[in-house]
């Protein structure tokens, strides 16, 4: 074991390399930006995307009305506003209110002065009941009798208190006259603080996009809709890229039968038009109310990751000789015996052991330590099986293994471990540790699998084959390049070839597709919502808002105009951004 001081030079060296690669990435970004800003449209797209993102982030500050959450993860509820319905933008109707006034002096509700107050509004949670706001009256429009209905009355019957604009004063004429005893409707304009914007000019500052059928401020809903749409777009695109990359690189790298099966599955997905496929998936997920995983299945991913990296490390250090040339050339682990061994080991250790250790088997509730130990045992056993396979079946030497193992860890140079592999290992360990504190036999991924989640999952299910095919093509293309063969010829292991040589050279088209796909996903999600298969009613989702506006779109077109414009701008922004990135990563434009 070296002393800390002895590793000083190595530390410096590694740090220098890290800084160099950092400088290089910064340089690359700078160069990319130079190419990017050549196109005016691309810059415009970036501005659009940034502004939509800013709107989404600061929705709470920008919007004037706010939704409340009803114990859901993604969906918002909006309380109905009975006063302003379908009022066009900037119109007087936006601050119009009709209030019923009791005029019968014998009624217990009667008072000579009446407070101008809003209709019933729902509190943060329905359980907390309703509340009303006190309004500040600016002008009384008309006074109507209730019985007989619809007759305009003298405006002087009710006046606003000169000291307090929120108080109506009833003239004795009104409550002295028995013909008014049924009460009157007073229609008045008030200062609608709730829908007014400080940054708009006087007179144009109220409900700038109008209100919808439920009386929600369309502007606020459009602003909050940015949040919903961007979340959907980015979540779906990220997950589809991840799944597609994993599946596609397996398919492209290993080829053969694996590739054949995966590509046939993709063909089936491609054979059904995307929207119809997504609709079918949404329907199929109707009854799922929360997304859970059995504990053993949730543990599987981190355990496999750790075992994989441990195995890769062990087989490059412990074994003096790698597997034989012919075996390696025959196609890695995926063939014959190795495959069988892995499947058996997988079923036995990864499936069965944690299931016992992690669930309350024999009615015993296990401690965190017990669970973690059992996971470590599984990882060690998995690695041991593969090592034993190498040693006894493939007859690799293990002489001096321990010595090599101890010398392979260089504790004196932490910089060396600043790489992707370490991140994955630590992430896996963190997940494992987090899960070990989990009570019960299921891991709850999404507690409330509401309709928006259903839409997102439907789009993920329909989206991954496209990426799988794209990444497969890229991997096949890069795999044939001479530098991959060169890496093989110096004995680089498959994981290194994949992560260091193939993927870094294959991801450029993926970035473009990712950006374009965010836009595409937003379009599809809004389309599903439009058809009534997406967001729950009254959610601030642009497609749904358009759908809800259909009943009155000839009467009040503003209800559909602005959400649609918002979709168009957002999607256009992402499409322009994607086009700009395409120019940047296009090898023709390098230098």
């Amino acid at each position, binding site marked *: 074991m070296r002393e800390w001081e002895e*590793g000083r*030079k*190595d530390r*410096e*060296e*590694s740090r220098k*390399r890290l800084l*160099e690669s950092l400088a*290089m990435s910064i340089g690359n970004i700078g160069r990319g930006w130079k190419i990017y800003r050549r196109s005016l449209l691309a810059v415009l797209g970036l501005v659009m995307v940034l502004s939509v993102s800013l709107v989404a982030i600061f929705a709470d500050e920008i919007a004037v009305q706010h939704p409340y959450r009803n114990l859901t993860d993604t969906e918002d509820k909006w309380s109905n506003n009975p006063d302003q319905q379908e009022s066009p933008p900037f119109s007087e109707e936006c601050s119009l209110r009709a209030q019923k006034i009791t005029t019968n002096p014998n009624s217990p509700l009667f008072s000579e002065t009446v407070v101008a107050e809003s209709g019933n509004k729902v509190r943060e949670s329905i359980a907390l009941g309703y509340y009303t706001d006190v309004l500040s009256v600016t002008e009384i429009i008309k006074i109507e009798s209730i019985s007989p209905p619809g007759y305009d009355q003298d405006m002087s019957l009710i006046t606003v208190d000169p000291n307090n604009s929120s108080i109506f004063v009833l003239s004795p004429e009104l409550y002295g006259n028995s013909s008014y005893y049924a009460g009157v409707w007073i229609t008045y304009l008030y200062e609608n603080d709730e829908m007014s914007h400080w940054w708009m000019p006087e007179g144009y500052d109220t409900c700038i996009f109008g209100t919808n059928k439920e009386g929600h401020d369309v502007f606020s809903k459009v602003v909050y809709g940015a949040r919903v749409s961007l979340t959907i777009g980015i979540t779906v695109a990220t997950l589809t890229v991840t799944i597609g990359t994993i599946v596609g690189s397996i398919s492209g790298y290993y080829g053969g039968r694996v590739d*054949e099966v995966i590509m046939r599955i993709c063909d089936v997905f491609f054979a059904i038009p995307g929207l119809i496929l997504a609709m079918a998936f949404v329907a199929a997920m109707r009854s799922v109310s929360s997304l859970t995983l059995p504990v053993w299945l949730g543990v599987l991913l981190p355990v496999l990751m750790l075992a994989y990296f441990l195995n890769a490390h062990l087989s*490059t*250090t412990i074994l*003096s*000789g*790698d*597997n*034989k*040339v*012919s075996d*390696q*050339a*025959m196609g890695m682990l995926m063939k014959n015996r190795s495959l069988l061994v892995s499947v058996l080991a997988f079923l036995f250790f990864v499936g069965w052991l944690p299931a016992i250790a992690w669930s309350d088997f024999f009615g015993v509730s296990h401690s965190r330590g017990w669970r973690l130990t059992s996971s470590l045992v599984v990882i060690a056993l998995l690695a041991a099986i593969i090592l034993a396979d190498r040693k006894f079946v493939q007859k*690799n*030497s293990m002489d001096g293994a321990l010595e*090599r193992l101890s010398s*392979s860890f*260089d504790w004196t*140079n932490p910089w*060396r471990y600043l790489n992707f592999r370490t991140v994955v290992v630590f992430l896996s360990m963190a997940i494992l540790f987090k899960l070990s504190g989990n009570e019960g036999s299921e891991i709850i991924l999404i507690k409330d699998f509401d309709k928006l989640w259903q839409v997102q999952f439907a789009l993920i299910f329909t989206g991954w084959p496209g990426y799988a095919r794209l990444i497969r093509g890229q991997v096949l293309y890069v795999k044939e*390049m*001479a*530098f991959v*063969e*060169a*890496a*093989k*010829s*110096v*004995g*680089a*292991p498959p994981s*290194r070839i994949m992560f*260091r*040589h193939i993927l*870094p*050279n294959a991801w450029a088209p993926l970035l473009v597709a990712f950006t374009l796909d965010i836009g595409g996903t937003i379009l599809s999600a809004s389309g599903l919502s439009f058809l009534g298969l997406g967001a729950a009613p009254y959610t601030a989702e642009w497609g749904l808002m358009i759908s809800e506006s259909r009943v009155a779109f000839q009467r009040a077109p503003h209800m559909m105009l602005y959400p649609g414009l918002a979709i168009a701008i957002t999607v256009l922004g992402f499409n322009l951004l994607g086009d700009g990135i395409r120019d940047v990563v296009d090898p023709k434009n390098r230098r």
Partner: protein
Amino acid sequence: MSEKPLIEIRGMRKWFPIKEGMLSSVRSYVRAVDGVDLVINRGETLGVVGESGCGKTTLGRVLMGLIPITDGSVTYSGSDIRDIPNKEIRRKMQIVFQDPGGSMNPRISVRSIVGEPLQVNGISEGVELTRKVEELLESVGLKAEHMTRFPHEFSGGQKQRIALARALSLDPEFILLDEPTSALDVSVQAQVLNLLEQIQKERGLTFVFISHDLAVVRHISDRIAVMYLGKIVELADSDEIYRNPLHAYTKALISAIPSPDPDARSDQPPVEGDVPSPVDPPPGCAFGHRLQHPDWEKSTKMDLSLKEVSPGHWVQPCPCCTDEFDEDRDLPDWVRGE
């Protein structure tokens, strides 16, 4: 030169299956290498010449163990290459590729490219790696400060030097040079060839030099094997093969070398026809078939394995292409007189 050869190839075959769609089973094969016997001695340079598609690159890949052999065997200093652990082979046998740019990952620095063999084999890390890479770069005539640059910043010749440095990093005994100069300008070719010779002398390396350019091969090789359609048709010392080519294909190759002297142009007409497809090669002497030689029929019934005509000079004993054992046949004067 030691008694025991470094590499011995016996009856090497490499057939690539052609798939005819997903449901049908394999119907036919590309016979890239179809029965090659070859001995490579320690410290020598063996040139392998042939036109594109003749299987010389495949021969090299199989020889290196990069792709599995279909039939036959490759023996490396006494043991079958399939029995030697991969890591050991990689330390002893290295390869330099044809396209110097393509054989380097454009996203990693020269230090990582040259140091990768050392890294993946767990030989050195950190400062030590940097020092070794420095040494290697200097030994191929590059500077230490080139280490932090990226492949695209170099010229073709420099890239090939980097590739050579990578091949040398594990201190191998044997290097396969797969057309290392054909992507380079003529002026740079000579530099690289000289560097190769110098390094071979310094380190006592064994080379197999694959090329389609007979002139280049002759410059560097001790012996030359001429390949045609997956088979070796002639094998001899490089001077001997020039002075005394026996196979018609070798003659055609030699006469195809442009001569600087306009008066000494070859009378031999250029070879007609295309190289037959290796998917379904004609039986017997493939070159005779291409020439539509009247004696071709005869060759289909003969054993065409190489015969030693004179010491160290082997040739395919084919009635249509070889003027069999006839030492006095007419050769163009320019060939004789060099």
